[in-house]
C-alpha cells in the first residue's frame, strides 16, 4: 500500500528491530516494524532519534530502502561513518528486539510514484543508492514497465549495496540497466579505469537526452552537484532532475 502524498503531521513512533543484515563491511540494513505505519512512497526517509539516559538525544535522517508494502515493515540501510555519533550505534550496538524511535515518512518531492510511466534515470553516489533502491524495488513490486537506468558510483566493488539483487534485476526481462562507476578500485575485468563519473560515462551510462527521463540524483553534496552539472551538460532538462543531498560525510543530520 503506497502512502499518500499529503503528509499527516509526523510524530515520533516506536519501531522494533526485527532483523539485521550487513550489506558491506561498513553498512547494515535494519528491518523495522512500525505500528500504525501509514505507508510510504519510494524515496522518502525517516528521522531516527537516539536518547541517552540523561536525556541527551541525537537525530539523523535515513532513507527507506524497502518498497512500499502493507506489512508495516520498513528497511533502512545505514553506513557506519568513522566519526559518526549515531551510525556506529545503529550498525554495531543495536540488536534485534530493540526499540528505535523514528518519525516519518518524510519528503514529497524526491519520490517515485508507481503511476509514473516515463523513463527514469537514477544516479547514486555511495550511500545515495538507498532511496533509489526503494524506487527500483517499488517498480518491481508494482510490476511497472517504466524504463529504469541506474548509474551507481562507488569507491570499490566491496562497497556496493544490494549487489545480488541489482544483478538479478538487470538480468531479467523488463530489466533495470545498471552501470557501475568505481572511483578508487575496479573489479579485474573492468573496461574502465577507476575515476569519478565524467561526461564520457554519462554519455554511455545514462539515457540520452532525447529520451527526456525524470532523473533522481542522490549522494554526498559534492557528488550531487557534479552529477547534476554533467547531466545538464549532456542535454538533460534541469527541471526534470530531482536531487537529494547527503552531508559531505554522507551523514544527514
Amino acid at each position, binding site marked *: 500500500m503506497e502512502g499518500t502524498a499529503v503528509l499527516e503531521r509526523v510524530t*515520533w513512533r*516506536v519501531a522494533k528491530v526485527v532483523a539485521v543484515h550487513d550489506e558491506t563491511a561498513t553498512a547494515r540494513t535494519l528491518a523495522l516494524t512500525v505500528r500504525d505505519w501509514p505507508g510510504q512512497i519510494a524515496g522518502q526517509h525517516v528521522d531516527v*532519534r*537516539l*536518547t*541517552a*539516559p540523561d*536525556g*541527551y*538525544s*541525537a537525530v539523523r535522517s535515513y532513507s527507506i530502502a524497502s518498497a512500499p508494502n502493507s506489512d508495516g515493515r520498513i528497511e533502512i540501510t545505514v553506513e557506519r561513518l568513522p566519526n559518526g*555519533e549515531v551510525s556506529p*550505534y545503529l550498525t554495531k*550496538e543495536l540488536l534485534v528486539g*530493540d*526499540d*528505535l*524511535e523514528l518519525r516519518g515518512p518524510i519528503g514529497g518531492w524526491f519520490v517515485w510514484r508507481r503511476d509514473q510511466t516515463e523513463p527514469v534515470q537514477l544516479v547514486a553516489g555511495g550511500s545515495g543508492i538507498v532511496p533509489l533502491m526503494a524506487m527500483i524495488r517499488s517498480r518491481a513490486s508494482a510490476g511497472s514497465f517504466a524504463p529504469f537506468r541506474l548509474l551507481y558510483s562507488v569507491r570499490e566493488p566491496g562497497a556496493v549495496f544490494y549487489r545480488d539483487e541489482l544483478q538479478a534485476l538487470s538480468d531479467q526481462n523488463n530489466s533495470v540497466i545498471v552501470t557501475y562507476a568505481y572511483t578508487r578500485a575496479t573489479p579485474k575485468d573492468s573496461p574502465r579505469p577507476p575515476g569519478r563519473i565524467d561526461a564520457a560515462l554519462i554519455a554511455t551510462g545514462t539515457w540520452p537526452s532525447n529520451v527526456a527521463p525524470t532523473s533522481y540524483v542522490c549522494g554526498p553534496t559534492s557528488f550531487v552537484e557534479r552529477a547534476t552539472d554533467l547531466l545538464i551538460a549532456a542535454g538533460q532538462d534541469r527541471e526534470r532532475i530531482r536531487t537529494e543531498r547527503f552531508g559531505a560525510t554522507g551523514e544527514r543530520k
Partner: protein
Amino acid sequence: MAIISRGFSGRRSAADVKLPPGQYLTTDFPVLSAGPTPHISLDRWEFTIDDGSNVLKRWDWKSFRELPTETITVDIHCVTRWSKLGTSWEGVSLDVLLGDLKTDLPYAMFRSYGDYTTNLPLKDVINKQAWVAFKYNGADLEPEHGGPARLLVPHLYLWKSAKWVKGMTLMPHDKPGFWENLGYHIYGDPWKEQRYSNE
C-alpha cells in the same frame, strides 16, 4: 516522551573540570555555520567602526596587522553545548581598535562577511574582554573557523564571537542580531545558562 535507547551515550566525554551548566567537554573543534564559508581576499578585507551614519575608523589588512597584538588562552562555550578549554588565539584587542574613540552609544552590532550579525553591549567588548583574532593555535585562522579574522568574546556563548567579522556599528539601543531574533538570548552568559530568549 522519548524512549531511552539501550546503550547509547553519544559523543560526549566526561570531565572533572568546571564547565558552565549544561555543557560537555570536546577535544575537537566543531564547525558550525549558517551559510557557505566566505573566502575573503586580504586585499579586499577591511574592518570598520561606524555609528550608523559615519565611518569612524577603518583598517585594511595591512594597517590592521600593524596594530599591537596579544596572544590569549581562553575557554569557549557553544550554545549547542560543547565547550573547548584552553584555546589559544592571537588578535587585536577591541580596546586597541576603539582606542580613544569617545561615544555615548552603549551597544554595537557586529557585522560579518556573508550576512551574519550579532549584538553586544559596548561594555562587554572593552576592558580586555574581546579581540579581533586572526591566528588560532599559532597558525593563520582557517576560513571554516572564521578566517581571515573573527571576533572573539569568550565570556559569552560562542555565537557572539562572529566569524568573518568586518565591522561594528554603534547603536543607541540593543537590537537583536541573526540568532538573537530567532529565539536565542539577547546577551548569552553561559554561566547563567542564558541560551534562549525565554529564560
